[in-house]
């Protein structure tokens, strides 16, 4: 599951279209988005490279698809709207508030709003929410957000509704009230119930099966799926039973949405820059590096938005490999990497900021530091050589880097190879096919000494960032997200301590400090905070990059300036 998250980061790195983008403040973007206030009505076109991973919210788990889910599904809570921190704040959605915990935050109670319905007009009850969670725990589909599995109190062998039946530890005393029992104190549980697997579905295991939702979703949000051809088109139209007065988050301006999948990245850029015909009503993911120079004209700048993806592109160093197990070697690599060159290869300052910390600035508690400084981030080969000599490698060091077979990652890898060569470190590439890349680096027996990958937080908290990447207990033979395989007692202990904190603010600050503690061990080289730069059609209004969806344009707020 965690691998899915990694996949998300990576997916972002590669498939432009999937990329939702986040708007941390990047200085140059306007906070209003482009085009002013949208009108109600019209059809918004979305041009996309790859199709959504899954329409079933129990299965899909990346920034792009989570952004899409908000159009058709509702959860007890959700992320806010607006750029930066406003967008990543957790706000009530189906529930009247963000939940009431008991004293030690192990039992959480939520109350549902009135006038909430599925697309067929039946009211959404607490039993439907409970059923949705139980359904999502079925082993055949529980490949999405893992938090329900991690924090809900349940029998060890619980396998979802269809195999194990109802879960007693989710109580529904009446139609409007739902009570969750957790297996640990969890102060951030309000964010957990905003995760996609908490989407309600009619509590009827005859018509709703493990596979039915992926084919025909049942909408609780403002739109329903009326046409879907996998890999080619997806059409959403209004769900008449959605009541705007119950929803403070979704504006739902357009009458319909139309996705076109399978377009080449360069083609999308070309169409968005030209902006002819229906493309005036279109939005798309981030442009390619080669298009950056072409969107600098004032006319196109007016309809360009940008924001941080909220993810970190980094190079985990496998701490179990000979040589790499020495912190001095890892520190030397950290010192020697020319991050400026990596940034240039990725598309320069418009598409990436240099990272010196693991946590991106969009995560609460982000603390800025640079333990391995160099002038203009160009690397310090001399200092690296000294460290290597100290570590017993005066004649240099050699390692193999796993990279994905795509131009951007190859450019990043070449930049790393070139800068490490100056410190006497030889980097060999192991080129892995895009389709199997995350599987290979997530399998401990197959990964090599290092890799280039990315990570996006599931919500804006260090709790969803550092533990999956660096906690010793999260090393798995397969589907491993702790690619560095760091298993440091002090780090593990500290993670457990922070988890137990009931004060969210205090915990956030502690995650920031832990980031620095981890980087002292240098289990990874933070490379970049990549940005999304998106050109929208001239008739699009209210578009801004949402920090919670990897910088993607927030679908529930975007609309058209004029609906013909």
């Amino acid at each position, binding site marked *: 599951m965690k691998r899915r998250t990694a996949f998300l980061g990576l997916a972002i790195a590669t498939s432009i279209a999937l990329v939702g983008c986040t708007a941390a403040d990047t200085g140059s973007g306007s906070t209003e988005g482009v085009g002013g206030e949208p009108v109600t009505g019209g059809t918004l076109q979305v041009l996309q490279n790859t199709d959504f991973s899954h329409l079933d919210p129990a299965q899909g788990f990346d920034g792009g698809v989570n952004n899409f889910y908000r159009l058709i599904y509702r959860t007890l809570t959700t992320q806010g709207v607006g750029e930066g921190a406003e967008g990543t704040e957790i706000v009530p959605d189906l529930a009247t508030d963000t939940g009431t915990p008991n004293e030690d935050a192990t039992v959480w109670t939520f109350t549902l709003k009135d006038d909430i319905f599925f697309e067929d007009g039946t009211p959404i009850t607490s039993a439907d929410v409970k059923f949705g969670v139980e359904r999502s725990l079925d082993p055949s589909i529980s490949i999405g957000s893992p938090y329900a599995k991690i924090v809900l109190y349940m029998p060890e062998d619980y396998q979802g509704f269809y195999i194990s039946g109802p879960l007693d530890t989710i109580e529904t005393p009446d139609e409007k009230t739902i009570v969750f029992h957790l297996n640990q104190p969890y102060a951030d549980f309000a964010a957990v119930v905003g995760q996609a697997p908490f989407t309600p579905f009619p509590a009827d295991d005859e018509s709703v099966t493990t596979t039915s939702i992926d084919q025909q979703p049942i909408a609780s949000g403002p739109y329903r799926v009326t046409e879907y051809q996998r890999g080619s088109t997806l059409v959403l139209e209004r769900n008449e039973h959605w009541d705007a007065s119950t929803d403070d988050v979704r504006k739902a301006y357009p009458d319909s949405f139309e996705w076109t999948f399978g377009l080449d990245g*360069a083609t999308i850029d070309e169409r968005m820059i030209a902006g002819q015909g229906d493309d005036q009503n279109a939005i798309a993911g981030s442009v*390619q*590096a*080669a*298009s*950056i*120079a*072409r969107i*600098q004209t004032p006319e196109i700048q007016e309809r360009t938005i940008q924001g941080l993806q909220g993810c970190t592109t980094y190079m985990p160093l496998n701490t179990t490999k000979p040589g790499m197990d020495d912190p001095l070697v890892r520190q030397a690599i950290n010192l020697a990497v*020319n991050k*400026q*060159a990596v*940034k*240039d*290869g990725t*598309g*320069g*300052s*418009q*598409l990436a900021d240099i990272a010196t910390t693991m946590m991106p600035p969009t995560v609460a508690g982000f603390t800025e530091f640079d333990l391995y400084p160099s002038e203009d981030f*160009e690397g310090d080969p001399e200092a690296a050589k000294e460290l290597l000599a100290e570590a017993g490698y005066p004649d240099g060091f050699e390692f193999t880097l796993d990279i994905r*077979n795509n*131009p951007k990652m*190859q*450019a990043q890898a*070449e*930049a790393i*190879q*070139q800068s490490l*060569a100056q410190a006497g470190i030889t980097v060999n*590439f*192991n*080129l892995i*096919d895009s389709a199997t890349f995350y599987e290979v680096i997530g399998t401990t027996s197959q990964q090599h000494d290092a890799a280039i990958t990315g990570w996006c937080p599931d919500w804006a908290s260090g709790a969803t960032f550092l533990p999956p990447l660096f906690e010793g207990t999260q090393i798995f033979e397969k589907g491993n997200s702790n690619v560095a395989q760091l298993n440091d007692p002090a780090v593990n202990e500290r993670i457990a301590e922070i988890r137990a904190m009931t004060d969210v603010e205090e915990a956030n600050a502690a995650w920031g400090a832990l980031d620095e503690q981890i980087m002292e061990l240098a289990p990874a080289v933070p490379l970049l905070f990549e940005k999304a730069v998106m050109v929208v059609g001239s008739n699009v209004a209210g578009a801004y990059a949402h920090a919670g969806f990897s910088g993607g344009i927030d679908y529930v707020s975007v609309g058209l300036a004029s609906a013909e």
Partner: protein
Amino acid sequence: MSTVPSELAVETEPKGVLPTGSAPTPARRVISTLRKSPAVVFSVCVIVFIVLLAVFAPVLAAITGWDPYEFDPTAIDSDLGGVPIGPFGGISSSHWLGVEPGNGRDILVRIAYGARVSLMIAVSATLITTTFGVVLGMVAGFFGGLADQIISRVMDFLMAFPSLIFMIALLSALPAGNRPALLVLVLSIFGWPYTARVIRGQAMSLRNSEFVEAARASGARPVKIVFREVLPNLRGTIIVLATLAVPSYIGTEAGLSFLGVGVMPPTPSWGQMISTAVGWYAVDPMFFLIPGTFLFLTVFAFTVLGDNLRRVLDAGDAA
């Protein structure tokens, strides 16, 4: 691969117009005829230039001061997605043919190193396919029978393959290892039947010629006949086939690298440069044009030379 008239070279020497220096004359005649053609002179100049470029690539790197892998962040504009600074893709006194967008590597030096890779692969593959093609083709054509059956079926089998698709599949499946060597191997596997087929046809017609009969009557062993009597008569054909094979392998290698299964980065390769340049065509067309021009000129020069050689040799034989 183009076909060569199978009658070619059949009756030349046996007619043996009397011993007025028959051995050196054809070569001289061919060269003097080719010299008169401006297209051939141009082609030879291009080939010599490319070969010199490849051979002296390290010298060029030393003169310009750029290593083929060295980044030059000052030559690109980080704020514009990494486009080269300056006109025509960053052409300047320090970068004579500009730089690659995104990293600022010197294009001229990478072209020179790319020429090494291209030529080395193409020439090696040509040597291997010509050797195998000639030997197997002669054996099949001269001896006929079972040997011919087996060799011809293998050739049919290999030629029936959609070779490009098969090369892509094979190169993707093989472990990374030594890429150039793998490329030579794969190109050779699918390349030799084209040479062998032509040679076989010629060997078949030579088999019954008078001078072979004469050699046989005088008691020469078959292997000796093949290499002493038949092979010299195939000289012209072999030269033409080899000259035409080189550009086809250069093109195929570039194509495979373009598709991402050929030479692996960061090793410079023309096909790879063109592939990278695709996305940049609108903002930096020079990045596409320069390697494209080198690839075109090289393939063009070899092809023109090969065609003219064939023409001259054909004419000579007919005379």
